C-alpha cells in the first residue's frame, strides 16, 4: 500500500493512498469521485481536464498527483455550494452555452480563472484565455457570450 498523499481539494483536506505518479485526473475521478474534470487527450492539448490550481486553470491529465501537494485545488464541483451556483455556472445556463457539455467543466474553470484576474475582459482577452480549451460541438460563441454576461452583470 503506498503512503497516503495529502491534498487540498475544494477547501477540504483529502488523503489518498496512490502511487505518487498516478495522474492527478485519475485521482480526482476515481479516488475522490470528482468526475466533472474529463479525460480528453492525456496530452495537455484540450483542457477538458482543467481544474483551478492556486487560481489558475491547470491541466491534470499528464501530471502525477504529487505535483499538486500543497496546492489549493478547486474543481468544478467546488464552485457551487449548497445549491448556489457560481455566477459563471449561472451564465452558462442563461446563455445555454453547451451542447454535449463534455468540455464545459474545463471551460467554466477557465472562465473563472480569467474573471478572477481580469474582471472585465475584452472579447480578445476571453478568446485568448480560452484558446487552449477545445470544443467540438461549436459552442464557442455562446461561451464567449456567457463570459461577457458575467462581467456585465457584475459591473
Amino acid at each position: 500500500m503506498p503512503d497516503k498523499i495529502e491534498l487540498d481539494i475544494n477547501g477540504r483536506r483529502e488523503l489518498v493512498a496512490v502511487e505518487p505518479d498516478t495522474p492527478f485526473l485519475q485521482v480526482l475521478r476515481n479516488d475522490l469521485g470528482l468526475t466533472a474534470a474529463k479525460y480528453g487527450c492525456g496530452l495537455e492539448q484540450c483542457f477538458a481536464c482543467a481544474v483551478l490550481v492556486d487560481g489558475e486553470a491547470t491541466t491534470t491529465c499528464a501530471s502525477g498527483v504529487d505535483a499538486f501537494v500543497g496546492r489549493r485545488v478547486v474543481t468544478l464541483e467546488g464552485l457551487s455550494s449548497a445549491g448556489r451556483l457560481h455566477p459563471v455556472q449561472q451564465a452558462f445556463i442563461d446563455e445555454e452555452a453547451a451542447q454535449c457539455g463534455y468540455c464545459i467543466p474545463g471551460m467554466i474553470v477557465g472562465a473563472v480563472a480569467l474573471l478572477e484576474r481580469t474582471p472585465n475582459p475584452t472579447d480578445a482577452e476571453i478568446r485568448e484565455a480560452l484558446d487552449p480549451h477545445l470544443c467540438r460541438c461549436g459552442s464557442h460563441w455562446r461561451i464567449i457570450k456567457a463570459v461577457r454576461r458575467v462581467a456585465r452583470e457584475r459591473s
Partner: protein
Amino acid sequence: MSSLPPALAAHPDLDTWVRVDVERTITVFTGKVELGQGIVSALARVAAEELDVAFERVRVETADTDHGLDERMTAGSRSMADSGTALRQAAAEVRARLLELASAALEVPLERLQILDGTISDPSGGGRVTYWQLAGGQPLRRTATGLVAPKPAGAHRLVGRSEANRSDLRELVTGATRFVQDLRHELMVHARVVRPPSRAARLESLDDAPVRGMAGVIGVVRNGSFVGVLAEREEQAVRAAEVLHSRARWAEEATLPPRGALGSWLREQPGEAFLVTDGSPAGPAPEPDGAVQWTHRASYTRPYLMHGSIGPSAAMALWQDGRLSVWTHSQGVYPLREALGDALELPTDAIRVLHVVGAGCYGHNAADDAAFDAALLAIAAPGRAVMLKWSRTDEHQWEPYGAPALVECSAVLDERGRIVDWSHDVWGTTHISRPMTGGSPNLLAGPHLDPPLSYRGPAPFLVKEAGIHRNATPIYELPRQRIVKHFVAAMPLRTSSLRSLGAYANVFAIESFMDELAALRGVSPLQFRLMHLGDTRAREVLQAAADAAGWSGAASADFGRGSGVALARYKGSAAYAAVVVRLHVDDETAVIVLDEIFIAADCGEVVDPSGAVNQLEGGALQSASWTLKEQVVFDSTTVNSVDWDTYPILRFSEVPRIESVLLDRPGQPFLGIGEATQGPTGAAISNAVFDAIGVRLRDTPFTPARVREAALVA
C-alpha cells in the same frame, strides 16, 4: 385524423411513451438518444405542451433495449420528425384519456374541465383531481388511435417559445452529469485495448509476461490480433497497455492511398456509377454528352475528416449469469445489440444495451466499437463490470472517418445568363458502415479476431438522398440536369456517417459553382441564386440571411475583405439554411480570418428556439473547422493524425461573431436542423474568399499554403 405517425404506429401502446409517475412528475420515453443536440429537452417541451404540465415536471428516458421502444438510429436529423411527432400524438392521447378519467371521477362533463399543470378542475366549482391521483404509477392500457388532435399551434405556450432552459444544463455546469466515462460500478475493473499500429497489421508475437506481474493487473486477453488488458485501477490498466504495446511485434502492410492526390485516386478507383433522378440513384449513368460546349467546369474535393469528439469513446460491459449488459454512447442501442449478438453468438434477448450520454456525437463514431471491445473483455472476465476507455490516439487513428469526396460540376449558361444545362459527378467511399448482422458485424475489433469477423464489403446505398449523393440534387430549377453518383468500393480507411454525410461536399461544390457562374456573368451571387430558385421557403431563407448581414450581394470594394453566401435544404427534405460569411485574408500570413457568420433557417415548426440556434451555430463552426483546418494525414501504412497537434481544429481565437435568424412555421412539420449548416458554411467561406481576394479555393482545408498556391495560379 386517424393516421398515426410511423413511430407511434410501430409502438401504439401509450404506456410505451408516457408514464404518470407516483410523484408529481411525468416520464416520457423515446427510442432516440441524447447526442449533445438537446433532443431530451426538445422532447420534454413537446410532451409538457401537449400534457399541460410544467416543463420541469417532465423526465425523459432515452433508448434502452429493456424498455422496448425501438426507434433504430438517432441519425439523419430525424429525431423530432420521428420521435417528436410520435410523442406529440401519444401525449395528446394520454391527456385525453386523463380527462376522461377525471370526468368520471369528478362526475363532471368533459367539456367543463380544464387542466393547469396536471391538475384537472371544473372552474364552476365541481372539484379537482390531479394526473397523479388519477393514474400515478398506473399503466393507462390504451392504444393510440390517432383520433385525438394535438393542440393547434396558436395554443402553444412552450413550443416555439424561449422560456425554460435546456433541462440538462444545471447538471452539465455543476459536473453532476454522468457521462459513460463517469460510470461507477461495484464490480468495476478498468480496461484498455492495445490497437494495431496500422490498418492491415497482424500480431506476430506478444510477450505479456512482464505485464502479468504488474500491480493490479487482472489479466491479458489475446484473440488473434486483438489485445486487451484488465486491471483494478485505471492507471494500472494504462501502464500495462503501454508495456504490452512495447512488447508486441506486428507485421504491417502499406495499404493506404497516395497522400495529397485523393481526388485523382477516387476517380481512378473501380466502382459503380448511377444516374441520380429526383434524389435517387436509378439505373446506370450515361456518359457525358460530348457535344455539349460547357460554359464553365470546376472540381472540388474534401479529404478524410474526423468526428474528433472531445471525449474518446468508452463503454462498460458486464457478463454475468449468461447475460451481457452494455452501457454505451451508441446512436442505436437495438442495431448494436443485434450486431453484438451476431458477433458473440449470443441470442439478442441475452443482451441489454443501455444508452448513456457520451461526449458530442456527430455520427457513426467509435462508440459501437468501444462497446464491442468492452463486451469481448467482459466475457473474458465474468462477473466484473469492465470499464473500457479509448485513448486520444486510439480515437484519432481508429474512429470511422468522414468519407473523402471529389465533385465535378459543369454548366451551360444561355445568353440571358440562365443555366440551361447542368452536370454533377460525385465520387466517394461509403458513408454507411454501421454495425450490422449477417456475419459482418462491422465492429472494429472483428477483423482482428481469430477467426476474423470481417467487415462487410461496402455496397452502394441506392435510396433517396443516401450517403454519397446526399444533396447532389440542386435546390435550383434547372431544365436539364445530369447527376451521377460514383460509388468507390475501396475502403483503405474505414469511412462511415459523419454529420451531413455527402451533403457537405455536394453543397460545397454546388454552391461554390453557382458563385463562380454568377461571377462569370457579373451578376450578384444573391441575384443569380434567386433567378434559379422557385421554392418560396428557400428564397425567404436566403433573403433573411442577407438581410441579417445587411448585405446586398454587391462585390467587395475592399481588397482582402469579402462576403459570401450559400444555401441548401438538407437532404432536399429537412431544414433550409442559408449562411453569409464575412471574413478577411491576412495579407502576410495568408490565414483566412472569419469575422462574422449570419445564419437563417427554416426548420418548420420551431420547438426549442435556443436549442435550434445552438445546433445551427454549432454546425456552422464545426463546418468552418473542417473547411479551414481539417484533414486526416497518413503515409502509405499508418495514420499520422494522432492528437490535436497533428489534427488541429478550430479554436476560440478563430471563432467569429455569429447571428442567427429562425423563420418559424407554426403548425408545419418538424424539419430536422442538426446538419443543415454543414454544407452552406463551407461554400460561403469559399465564396467570401473569392470576394475578398479574387481566388477560388476548391479543395478543403483552406490552409495558408493552399491560399498562397491558389493566389499564384490566379
